[in-house]
């Protein structure tokens, strides 16, 4: 009666199957995942570029003038 597989063959086969399985998981986990999210995220605050009004509180407001 001859043995079907040696221990080395069994171990090698199991390791190979495990390696293929792990590799497939690695590839799958690195695939890009995208999903569309419905949300209106643009700020409702209006940034007024046109106004010339300087609002108090600027960090550069305490500067002396040249001719002072």
């Amino acid at each position, binding site marked *: *009666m*001859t043995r*079907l*597989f040696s221990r080395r063959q*069994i171990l090698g*086969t*199991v390791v190979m*199957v*495990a390696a*293929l*399985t*792990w590799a*497939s*998981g690695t*590839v*799958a*986990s690195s*695939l*890009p*995942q*995208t*999903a*569309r*999210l*419905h*949300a*209106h*995220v*643009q*700020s409702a*605050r209006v*940034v*007024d*570029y*046109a*106004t*010339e*009004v*300087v*609002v108090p*509180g*600027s*960090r*550069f*407001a*305490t*500067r*002396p*003038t*040249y*001719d002072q």
Partner: protein
Amino acid sequence: MSDAGLARLRLEAAWPRPLRQQIIVPFLLLLVLVAVVGVAALTYQATGAGLSGLDQSLVRDSVQANDALAALETGRLNDLRTLATTPTLATAVAQRNDTALSALFASDIKTAREAHVVIRLLDGQGRRLLSVPPDRGRAAYGDVPAVRRALTGASDPQGDKYLAVVAENSGEVVYWAAPIRDVTNQVTGAVLLGESVRDLAAEIGKGQTGRLFFYGPTGRPLDLSAAGLSSLNPDVRQAVSPDHLMRVSASANGHAYAVAVGDWTMRGERLGYLGVGVPADGVVDNVFRLRVVLLFMVAGTALLVLVVGGLLARRITRPLEQLVSSIVAAGDQRAPTGPADEIGYLASSFNHMTASLEEKTKALEATSFASVEALARAIDARDPYTYGHSARVARLSFAIAREMGLQPDELGTLGRAALLHDIGKIGVADRVLRKPGPLNKRDLIAMRAHPVIGYEMLKGLRFLESSLGGIRHHHEHWDGSGYPDGLSGADIPHEVRILTVADALDALTSDRPYRNAMSFSAAVATIEAEAGTQFDPAVVRAVRSHSAAIAALLTVMGKSRTMPSDVLKEPAI
């Protein structure tokens, strides 16, 4: 059966893949396929499910990030207006008075550093006059469209202040640009307030759990500190709208993120894309643990397939191997009765077939031998003086051989040779064979050819192959003086030496045309006299030691002690 026997049979039968392997390997390949595809699908789904758990957080952080961006934009614009309306600035810029400009902004260096911004004062051509704090940025900004518009004093519905993203040596910088006007409202230069994308992301991201990623219009990451961050693919860019974010998976600096990508809009223009990333290391860890569990499950299943499958396959194929073994094993052509299934039925059928073949083979051999034996008897019958000679020689040979301890298969060989040893006389003419007088030289040559004739006749019959030596060499002498090959001593096969003595014993105790039959004791004495010359001394000793039984055998076989008187006158051969 030995392993070597099975191995030889496998080689002969071109049997490189045992049946057991053919049973197990497909299941193993199927397992690999299911494992690879299944684990990939589960991993992908688990990753997606884990990331989707972050969606609420992503949306919330995105709203906060956009609000923070708007607040920052408002603050920077206010700073820009403050800078642009600095008294006497227009004059100093128009005069390109570096000393005056340095004095004007000396107190802003510290503030600018703390705010991570840079102030650049440009002359009317866009050349840099002053940087606060001092750095080694570009020497001129006239090629930037937004700056050029500010320098020309152009205005649109958003006013005369503009925004641009400029590539500097240190990375991408967002600049707010405003014209510097003198008392006559003429533009003498421009002031830029810049903040790097990296600092912009850091400032907006303050107080948030995630991290901000700025992308350009082509989807290229603008923040170089996010090492390894991938560009946005076109599908994602096209799917982004004011009402829709796209959640993508990304990694930066070795960490995984779920990133909600939306428009990056400032001053009413889309500058690129703003991504709000939430750390997804927890998701990655969970998926990793799932993969480890799956890995052990698959490896264990593979081991089970090999071991259990091997045992099951062995149970199926073992009866087949035993069947093959029984074919290979010498003298055993019966397969062991297997289980009550197809293989057992095959073994039973094989046994029936083997029995039938054995029976037919034996019948065929018996028929063939009977035919040849009948032929030999016919030869004996051609000469009344040798009638029954072959049968008697056979029985005498048996008696001597038993005394000498020959094995059963050697006895069989000897018996067949004894019965057929003179069959070659069929090729000797009756004139010579039945010649009553002495044979001349030519007749002797013809007579002495009968061993070779018999050998040539029967050498094609396989079942007589072992007996051919007795037929060819039964006239060889111990000292090498016999014919046809002049063999001597041990070169003459053992059973042939017995046959030679038995042949002589029957001849001496038989009547001949030229003499009466000798008494048994005289015949034995004559043979003993030739021991060592014509006969093997060992065989002669066996005859002597077994002489009583042999004499009784000759009597049973009805040997005549007298010969017809008319024959006595004939000369000897």
